[in-house]
């Protein structure tokens, strides 16, 4: 198909002067390829639209079967009125039951449309559904599930979409393919008049040319009905915030308990021992100065150990270089302490807020520890940048891969900690490596030198 279009539009306007103007074959070919792809996508969308329409009509029929039977019985003088009347109620109940099951089925074409709208139409659409109702980790009963379905506005918007998409959407989606088929028929039809051939081929070219825009329009139409309403978005957000807040509080509390324990068993205990040693030295200093001297040295060594423990503890709470210099230098300092070779590329102009900085630092620290422990990597590449209010950190190693967030709590822990800042973690780790972890945390940098981010 692309062959016939590449011939048509261009060769008319060659300037008399000669070779200044060239036919832009490359861009024409590109346009044609995009057009064909868009037409194909449209065809797939129309399939989805049809299935949605059929499902919703089926549902309507199921709901109407009971009332239909009642209406049927009320026609006077009908012979089977009685049986039909008896059947009406069970039929109505059964119809409603099946219809409620269909409500879930109808979500399938709608969800698929949402997922495809991003890559195919350039209009990404988020999932609007309320989360599944659960009671204590188990699936909820049928009553609650029905209530969950019926009270979700997205359910009704899906139905509306199935109807609208069944007519307007279907037309939009199938138009490019239709025009192309028309053009094809115009060419191959044996006895068509010349003007008819020209007309149909022009229509096909137009269809091909307009197909990407039509797909975009289709995407917007879908978005208007399939995207979450503002209210649904807020509800989802509230839920997410509640979850991450609880987790953040839990992690915070656990961290404080750990610090308390470390202080209690470490520095505090050593200070007590030091006090006792010093007291003992005081007792014997007159009678046995040599032994007292030994005790004093012992106390000094204990103080060195206590300091070392405090240092390690502080490093775990808030690393000094992070406080002094910020994320990039702190990660560099970290990489100086790591046995593998680390290539650090940082493009940060300014500093993220302290909590974000700290979360990002400990995430990288944990990842590096993982790499050292499990991956047997020789080299690791760390890339830190901030674009469009998003802090992105990539950690890639040339180890043997196979990292799985489902196993081991390390990656999960990082994910949880980042979630408190609406941050996300993506991991790609095929067996045999390499492992690439990407983290994204929304943040605004403070006091940049000059540039903004």
């Amino acid at each position: 198909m692309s062959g016939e279009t590449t011939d048509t539009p261009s060769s008319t306007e060659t300037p008399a002067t000669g070779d200044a103007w060239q036919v832009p074959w490359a861009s024409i070919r590109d346009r044609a390829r995009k057009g064909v792809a868009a037409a194909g996508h449209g065809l797939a969308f129309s399939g989805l639209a049809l299935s949605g329409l059929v499902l919703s009509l089926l549902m309507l029929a199921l709901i109407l079967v009971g009332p239909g039977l009642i209406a049927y019985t009320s026609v006077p003088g009908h012979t089977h009125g009685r049986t039909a009347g008896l059947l009406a109620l069970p039929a109505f109940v059964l119809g409603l039951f099946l219809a409620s099951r269909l409500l879930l089925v109808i979500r399938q074409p709608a969800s698929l449309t949402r997922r495809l709208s991003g890559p195919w139409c350039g209009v990404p659409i988020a999932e609007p559904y309320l989360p599944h109702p659960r009671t204590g980790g188990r699936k909820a009963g049928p009553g609650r599930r029905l209530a969950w379905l019926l009270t979700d506005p997205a359910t009704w918007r899906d139905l509306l979409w199935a109807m609208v998409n069944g007519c307007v959407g279907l037309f939009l989606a199938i138009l490019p393919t239709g025009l192309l088929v028309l053009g094809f028929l115009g060419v191959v039809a044996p006895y068509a008049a010349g003007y008819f051939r020209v007309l149909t081929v022009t229509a096909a070219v137009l269809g091909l040319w307009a197909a990407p825009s039509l797909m975009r329009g289709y995407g917007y139409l879908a978005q208007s009905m399939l995207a979450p309403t503002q209210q649904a978005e807020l509800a989802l957000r509230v839920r997410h915030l509640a979850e991450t807040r609880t987790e953040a509080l839990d992690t915070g509390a656990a961290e404080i308990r750990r610090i308390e324990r470390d202080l209690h068993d470490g520095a505090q205990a050593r200070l007590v021992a030091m006090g006792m040693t010093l007291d003992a030295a005081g007792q014997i200093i007159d009678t046995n100065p040599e032994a007292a001297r030994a005790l004093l040295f012992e106390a000094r060594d204990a103080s060195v150990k206590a300091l070392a423990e405090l240092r390690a503890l502080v490093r775990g709470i808030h690393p000094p270089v992070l406080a002094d210099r910020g994320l990039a230098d702190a990660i560099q300092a970290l990489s100086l302490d790591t046995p593998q070779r680390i290539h650090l590329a940082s493009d940060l102009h300014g500093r993220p807020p302290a909590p974000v900085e700290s979360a990002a630092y400990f995430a990288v620290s944990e990842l590096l520890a993982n790499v050292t422990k499990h991956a047997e990597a020789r080299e690791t590449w760390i890339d830190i940048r901030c674009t469009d209010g998003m802090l992105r950190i990539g950690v890639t190693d040339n180890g043997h891969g196979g990292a799985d967030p489902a196993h081991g709590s390390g990656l999960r822990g990082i994910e949880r900690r980042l979630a408190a800042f609406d941050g996300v973690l993506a991991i790609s780790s095929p067996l045999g490596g390499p492992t690439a972890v990407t983290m994204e945390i929304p943040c605004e940098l403070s006091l940049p030198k000059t540039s903004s981010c």
Partner: protein
Amino acid sequence: MRVVIAEDLFLLRDGLTRMLQAHGLEITAAVDNGADLLAAVAAQAPDVAIVDVRLPPTFTDEGIRAALAARNTAPGLPVLVLSQYVEQLYARELLASGSGGIGYLLKDRVFDSAQFVDAVRRVAGGGTAMDPEVIARLLARNTGNASIGALSPREREVLALMAEGRSNAAIAQRLVITERAVAKHTASIFGKLNLQPSDDDNRRVLAVLAYLEA
């Protein structure tokens, strides 16, 4: 020997002053911030400056920056930086600020006053004093290095002490061996690490540190 001290905590400043005086060093100024340090260095041209990393007003790495600035204005000024923690990143920056006359020690090291004063004198004399913890971490990082793996345990001890900036005599005293034995070890180390041997203590330290950092 004339010393300038920059340390913001009064107790530590006072303690340092008294300890150094007790060892016969002259404290010409004891200040509590970076700006005063620079002024004192310019006015008194001391033999060595002892600087705390955390100083007002930012209480971050002010001391490192002040030390680097002081060495910028008075090239070759020996500076000994003290800190509650040691970071290789800062050690590297200090080492890069000129050849020799640099020290970077944990504050805990002042507990052993004889060793500490020895470090101060070494730095004032243009030598190097790197904290054992810095060296230990550098060595830990190089565990996978085959050349270092080829060193005998004794040679590794000598390497660590050498990297701290100690002379052959000091190493011999520390390990309770003869200076000739130390010289033999160092020659062997330099051979195994493929480094250019050097009689100059300071050049030797820098070569070893550069090797470990690479």
